[in-house]
């Protein structure tokens, strides 16, 4: 087992190196540089920039370095724990990313918990009451959930919340709490703001997983060992929850690996609509501003998250299913 984890970790590092190289290449592809964006900004504000100052800035940002040199500089600094200073603001990249990543992770984690808590029982109900009215209703809602992209759902909820409940939804806190230290009132305010985000994030994933859960459980319920369990005289509820669900849950566990990073990055658009301070919009801004160090770092971090998520899912799967443990 340890051997296996070690092998996976090494493989992960190799992949991350490849991802960082390719990712960095893609990110610096767009014509123009961060300097152009900066200079344009300066000129818009009315200032003209002298030629030699531009030269100095170019040198400082390494604008004219060949790609490989840029990449190497970035990697060297990242490896030293210094993710660089974003061109866009003067904050350090690390600090900015962590601040945002924590909000993203928190939201995604809640969304994930919500997804599981809802999709498993509903999927089980739907499978055990196949072809009944509630099953049709659940199926219909699932399709709606799959069909509405998250950001559109966010938009719709935003309208309803504003129009009918007169609730301020965007952002993470109401304006009056913005600069206050954490308190119960602020926390409650945050909950009021974030439940929509969690709901929106979880909705699509919940719809998908409910469907998967239903299909799997239907498969498992046809298995001989379910009859064996029934033949023992077990209560149907025990048969379902102890014997069937445990075997039907594999894909859900596997989805954990992809779901967490997907939720973390999937909120890009939702966050855009709800103006949440998460990692997605930050990545987008970095791309737009051609802030390649920031964008590159986020990309590699998300990729690491994805790979770690997959590894965790595989380990969890081995724990759930003894057959996998041997391999």
């Amino acid at each position, binding site marked *: 087992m340890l051997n296996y984890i070690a092998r996976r970790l090494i493989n992960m590092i190799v*992949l*991350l190196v*490849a*991802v960082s190289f*390719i*990712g960095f290449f*893609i*990110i610096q*592809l*767009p*014509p123009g540089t961060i300097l152009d964006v900066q200079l344009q900004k300066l000129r818009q504000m009315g200032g003209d920039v002298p030629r030699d100052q531009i030269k100095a800035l170019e040198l400082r940002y390494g604008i004219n370095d060949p790609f490989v040199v840029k990449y190497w500089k970035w990697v060297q600094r990242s490896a030293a724990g210094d993710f660089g200073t974003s061109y866009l603001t003067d904050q350090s990249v690390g600090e900015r990313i962590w601040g945002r990543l924590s909000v993203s992770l928190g939201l995604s984690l809640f969304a994930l918990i919500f997804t599981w808590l809802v999709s498993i029982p509903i999927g089980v109900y739907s499978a055990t009451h196949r072809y009944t009215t509630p099953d049709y209703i659940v199926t219909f809602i699932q*399709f*709606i959930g*799959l*069909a*509405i*992209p998250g*950001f*559109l759902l966010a*938009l*719709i909820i*935003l*309208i309803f919340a*504003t*129009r009918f409940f007169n609730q301020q939804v965007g952002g993470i806190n109401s304006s009056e709490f913005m600069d206050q230290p954490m308190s119960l009132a602020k926390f409650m305010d945050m909950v009021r703001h974030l439940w929509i985000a969690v709901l929106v994030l979880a909705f699509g994933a919940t719809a998908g997983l409910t469907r998967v859960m239903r*299909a799997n459980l239907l*498969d498992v319920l046809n298995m001989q060992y379910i009859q064996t369990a029934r033949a023992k005289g077990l209560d149907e509820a025990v048969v379902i929850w102890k014997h069937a669900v445990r075997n039907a849950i594999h894909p859900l566990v596997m989805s954990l690996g992809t779901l967490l*990073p*997907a939720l*973390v*990055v*999937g909120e*890009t*658009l939702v966050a*855009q*609509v709800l103006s949440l301070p998460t990692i*997605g919009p930050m*990545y*987008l801004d970095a*791309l*737009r501003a051609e802030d390649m160090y920031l*964008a590159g770092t*986020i*990309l590699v971090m*998300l*990729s690491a*998250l*994805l*790979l770690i998520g997959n590894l965790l899912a595989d380990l969890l799967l081995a724990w759930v299913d003894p057959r996998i443990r041997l391999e």
Partner: protein
Amino acid sequence: MAVDATQLPHTTATQVEDVGQIPQWQLMVRRFRKSKLSVGGMYVLIVMYTIMLFSDFLAPYDHNRLDSNYAWGPPSQIKIVNGQVSTFALKQTLDQVRLQWLYVVDEGHPLPIHFFVQGYEYRFLGIFPSKLHLFGVEDGFQINLLGADKDGKDVLSRLLKGSQISLTLGFVGVVISVIIGSIVGTASGYFGGAIDNMIQRVIELLRSFPDIPLFLSLAAALPQNAPVEVRFFLITMIIAVIGWTGLAREVRGKVMAYRNADYTAASVAAGGSHWHIITRHLIPNSLSHIIVVGTLAIPAAIGSETALSFLGLGILPPAVSWGVMVRDAQTIEAITTYPWMLLPVLVLIITVLSFYLLGDGIRDAVDPYA
């Protein structure tokens, strides 16, 4: 007392019903028809794509025609006046307090709707130049059946024009990714060994990218001022590049299973060539699966285009797609006051939903046990 069964004459075969003898595809069609929702989804899509083909003919105006007299204009009212189907001229006034345009229907000025009128020039199906449009009103006035946007552009015309991109981009992207995925997946699963290993490494690498950020970075790298056709093509390629890996994996799995099936072994034993085995045994067996996965990938691709355009990284104005239109509907103020701006959202949801229903129905029909 024993009766020897073998000495007795043959009895007629039993009245075997036709259940076992219907061709496989007919059984699939039969099963597909059972699912009313999926059949409904299929019809909705047929209608939508038909409308798309005739979109220029059905659209009364060019999708970029501006008319400040109709900024945020409401959907036109239709009544029968003097025996003619008519709409009415609008009186535009400015609400000084809220800074909004107010429109009053001028009942005294009916505008009869003319059918088969001459309008802007377009190419029908991209080939035949034409100026014919289904309907229109007198020049100098505008009919906005579904309202107008902030510049007075006709929402109906934009929806129709936008369908040309929104309904095809995702579709083409998925078709390309299905082709790549099937070829690569089949090669990987059939030949195995070093080829398989290499392909799997590449797929693994591509899949270690979180897809949405990769999507965004690739889209951000697209040239900003390229013509719409080029952008369309490039976005299609992005969808294909990101999408093929999943399909390749699934096809590989299927092909590997079929490769080990007895009938493949029999074909190998009989001296079947690689080409023969792949085209006769592996592809036909995997085909239904490929179609299902493809159908279910289309709505996701449509969603991706919308998302990109919404973020300003996909299709860019002056071209129009439903995503571009959703971008206009971004502000709460816009949608609460002008609800018709949400129509592209509705149309998108219906399209995506129909594709999911169709795909789900095909999957159940193809493989009732999955």
